[in-house]
């Protein structure tokens, strides 16, 4: 069930310097006979944004859940910096510096911002008491960077706006110094100003050498932010392309038809009005 092959203590191979940050090989997940992810290969390098696009049910979120430890794969291997990684729970993923911002944000609505940022990784004093003040101070630092207007540190996050909640979820990933970041529809619930803010954050993180998988329905977001684009269709990768080598229409055609741009016939393209 898990993707473990070797213990994580394997010495680094000599070829490591050029190894990709993440290399997922032949990942398979099925739910009762339905192949949600069907033999996918995908990789990600430092300071790179890979856009993951596809229709509903194409398998994008499931694939990313395998990487974040929220879903176990039936088969396949994950290599982190060239070494086989054993990821069978969210906690495992976090030890590899993998942080995920879920579409649902995965916030405990009844808790305040610091409690959510440190959810499952609370800071404690020497005697094991929660250090709420230290957590609040750290939360203020990280959120100040994301959204200087954020003030509501004591309120349950249920009372915050969509953008503020998003900021809390992103703040969690940034505080724990993600090396690999998965963002599942980070701007779907946001207004234009907040969307611009998230885009700026993504560009900043990329500058810092963090590798980002960006799942998005918004093809313009993806073209703006991604270096490469992987198109998924029915659990498979249709193609992975450099952003500069394709047009938005070609990517749209791949999403809808599930075929590489060159393979689609004129009739099919005409039918989807591209």
């Amino acid at each position, binding site marked *: 069930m898990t993707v473990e092959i070797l213990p994580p203590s394997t010495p680094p191979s000599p070829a490591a310097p050029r190894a990709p940050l993440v290399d997922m090989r032949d990942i398979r997940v099925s739910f009762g006979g339905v192949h949600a992810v069907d033999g996918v290969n995908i990789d990600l390098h430092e300071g790179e944004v890979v856009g993951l696009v596809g229709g509903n049910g194409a398998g994008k979120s499931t694939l990313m859940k395998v990487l*974040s430890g*929220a879903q176990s794969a039936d088969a396949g291997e994950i290599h982190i910096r060239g070494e086989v990684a054993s990821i069978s*729970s*969210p*906690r495992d993923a*976090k030890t590899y510096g993998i942080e*995920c911002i*879920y579409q*649902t*944000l*995965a*916030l*405990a*609505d*009844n*808790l305040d911002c610091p*409690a*959510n940022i440190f*959810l*499952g*990784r*609370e800071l*404690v004093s020497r005697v*094991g*008491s*929660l250090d*709420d*003040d*230290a957590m*609040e*101070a750290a939360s203020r630092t990280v959120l100040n960077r994301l959204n200087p207007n954020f003030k509501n540190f004591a309120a349950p996050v249920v*009372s915050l706006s969509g953008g503020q909640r998003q900021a809390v979820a992103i703040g969690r990933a940034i505080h724990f110094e993600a090396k690999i970041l998965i963002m599942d529809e980070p701007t779907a619930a946001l207004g234009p100003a907040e969307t611009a803010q998230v885009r700026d954050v993504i560009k900043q993180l990329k500058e810092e050498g963090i590798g980002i998988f960006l799942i998005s329905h918004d093809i313009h977001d993806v073209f703006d932010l991604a270096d490469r684009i992987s198109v998924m269709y029915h659990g498979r990768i249709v193609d992975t392309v450099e952003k500069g080598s394709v047009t938005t229409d070609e990517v749209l055609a791949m999403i809808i038809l599930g075929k590489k741009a060159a393979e689609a016939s004129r009739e099919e393209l005409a039918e989807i009005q591209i």
Partner: protein
Amino acid sequence: MTGAEAQLQPPAYQRVLGAIREFLRRIPVALRRAEIDTRLFGMLVALAIIWVGFNVVSDGGFLTARNLWNLSVQSASIGIMATGMVLVIVSRNIDLSVGSLLGFLGYTMAMVQIEWIPRALGLGFDQPYTWLVALVVGLVLGATLGAITGLIIGYGGVPSFIVTLGGLLVFRGLIFSYAQGQTMAPLDGIFRLLGGGPEGSLGETLSWAVGVVIAVAIVINAVRSRRRKRHYGFQVRPMWAEIALNGFAIAAVLGAVWVANAYSWPEALAAQFAEERGIPIPPGGLIIPTGIAYPVLILLAVTIVMTYVATRRRFGRNVYAMGGNPEAARLGGINTRKTIVTIFAVMGVLCAISAAVQTARLNAAVTGLGGQNELDVISAAVIGGTSFAGGIGSIPGAVLGAVVMQSLRSGMLLLNVDSPTQDIIVGFVLVIAVGLDAYLRRRAG
């Protein structure tokens, strides 16, 4: 004023109502500025109304040292279990088995004292260690049975409602495996002190000592919290609020000690005590202040420990996170199954403590011990602001809820309200309290 203007002016009663409404609207704002829990404040107000109301109706019969002392002892057993029920309900579970588990554990502890140590092991009655062995057996068994319940819920995936409904039947039935359900009495002399009563109390000096220690702890806690917040440059409570709040808390603690000491031993018992020690009885009778009863002391300790666990430990934070969003808790790397096992194990331990208090107070174990306690415990937690939607609830609130419930019962008893009518009224109060809470919460958004 012309006729038209007079018509535009709302009638006087509406203006008065408006002013009252405006005043009520401002209370939460002031409370928020002082960082006071609105719900806890509301409960204190409700409790004050209940107490004063009963006192007026009973011509001063309610707010007597004797009645308040009894009230404190009667609230202890339910209050102790209610602290655990908060965690159970906050984590979106329920425990219907607490009353039966209490009965089974109480019976087991009685068996240890009456059958196993004296007869089966032949060590005799009233050994100095008997009470401790009985208590430890009860606590360990309580933790074990609670953990098994938690395992079935967390790892077995059976809903807690069903598992604990089964537990309710199983534990009650198991009592009859001991001594065919005969009443077990009397209990060990030292163990009996856990139930309170004049001898099972701290007495004057120690009660004051406990009061002073708590008062000092309140001050130290306030000073340290302010200093820590300043260190990080956070906003601190306005000074007036800090002094008023902590002053009120200290006054309440010392006032409670004063009341407990104002209740003196019953005359006959004091006379017997004097005779045994050869103390001459002064004119007007021997006054021995009772002080804080042991069950109340236990409740106090349990409340402090459980509040600390719920608000200042990782385990407690995880419980609240699970209640707020189980999926988020899992994705955050929290081991939700293990947390559930711990919650129910803690509940089992608290049942054992309450079982000790109840059997000690009765000086016997009877088959009906703890019957329907689950309903009182759940009611106390819910009146105390614990939400069945999960993620919301406070431990001091639940203890206050237990005191509110007991105050109602004790007050109605004082007014000679019969037991079925008491049930009807408590039933209405429960539904109204929760309804009001839900309404206010919706209003607050």
